[in-house]
């Protein structure tokens, strides 16, 4: 039904990563190089548009090219912004977990990691100054593990279900009920996130 001619462009790749990030309950590896290249592209297009606008001999045809180029710049900027905001939202939500786990830190860029550290520190000192320092010493902890209650440090919920669509024939994965599932190209399946986590990291599935 759908014809995908050849490989995908950088923009299509970013859109795919953006959608993956929007749907995934965990933070996915940062696509800093891809983002950098697209931001460069945006800047170049912007300069070209400024040049064309400043030129007084522009014909009506030029006018349309300028308008379409500007519209496209706005579209790409929106996608980049939404991608960064989604990651930021997850980073701030799981800031304390990130600070404590080196494994998830590898998936963040340097600036994101720095932001996570400062945010976690800010939150802890805020809680401490407003409430905790007035409590008895034993109740000041922010990392208590009490039985039958969820942990105080929020961690990503890898059991949450996601809709995954296979981009190629996938190797078999183990499902929670013990059976194995091998997805074929174009197959859509609803399954807990951790089942397809590795497939997603290798770009064999995308979240839909």
């Amino acid at each position, binding site marked *: 039904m759908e014809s995908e001619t050849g490989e995908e462009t950088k923009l*299509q790749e970013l859109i795919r990563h953006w959608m993956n990030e929007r749907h995934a309950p965990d933070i996915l590896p940062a696509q800093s190089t891809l983002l950098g290249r697209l931001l460069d592209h945006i800047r170049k297009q912007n300069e070209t548009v400024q040049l064309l606008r400043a030129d007084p001999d522009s014909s009506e045809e030029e006018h349309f090219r300028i308008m379409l180029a500007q519209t496209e710049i706005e579209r790409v900027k929106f996608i980049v912004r939404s991608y960064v905001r989604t990651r930021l939202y997850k980073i701030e939500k799981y800031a304390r977990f990130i600070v404590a786990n080196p494994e998830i830190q590898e998936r963040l860029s340097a600036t994101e990691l720095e932001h996570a550290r400062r945010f976690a520190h800010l939150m802890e000192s805020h809680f401490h100054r407003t409430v905790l320092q007035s409590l008895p010493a034993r109740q000041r902890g922010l990392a208590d593990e009490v039985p039958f209650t969820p942990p105080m440090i929020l961690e990503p919920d890898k059991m949450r279900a996601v809709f995954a669509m296979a981009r190629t024939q996938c190797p078999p994965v183990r499902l929670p009920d013990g059976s194995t599932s091998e997805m074929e190209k174009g197959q859509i399946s609803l399954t807990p996130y951790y089942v397809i986590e590795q497939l997603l990291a290798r770009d064999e599935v995308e979240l839909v």
Partner: protein
Amino acid sequence: MALSVSLRSSVTPPELELVASEQLIEIIPLISMDKTAFISGAYGPLRPPAKCKLPIWMATNLKLKKKCHIVPPAWLNVDFLQDRLTRETSQPEFCAMPFRFAEIAKIILDVASDDVENPDKIRSLLKDLREARQAKSREGITKLDHSELSLPNLCSMEINEIRPFFIRSMGVLTQLTRDPAAAGDA
């Protein structure tokens, strides 16, 4: 905070429309334009009345300024949709439809209904198709278990509609199966 509350739980239909608008569609231009390099690729040249392929967002832009005519894709006509509708109502599985047909059909019918033949009939066929498929998705909830559910031929907008409910149901089922005593009672 970085993401507004309405965006946190799921992807919104306008965002799905944005993604669908990157696909290519054929137009009959009414202005000429040289080959231009955009971020998503190089398009053109536009030489009326020769047909040309452009992304849908570009085509809608030009159409709104009355500078082109949109050629509806091969699946957006009465015969094809009628055939799919009869298949949908006679078989228990979902029939194959283009993955983003709901978004693309909406854009084209909104912007270029004069370029489509018989738009009202197409609108009613799409509506019937949507209702038939929704009824099947609702039955699909009975097949839901805690491990996996395969949904062949389901489309982007439909997945988005069932997403919140199916995800929460699977979450509840997972919790029930993690606790063997509760599963024994149920």
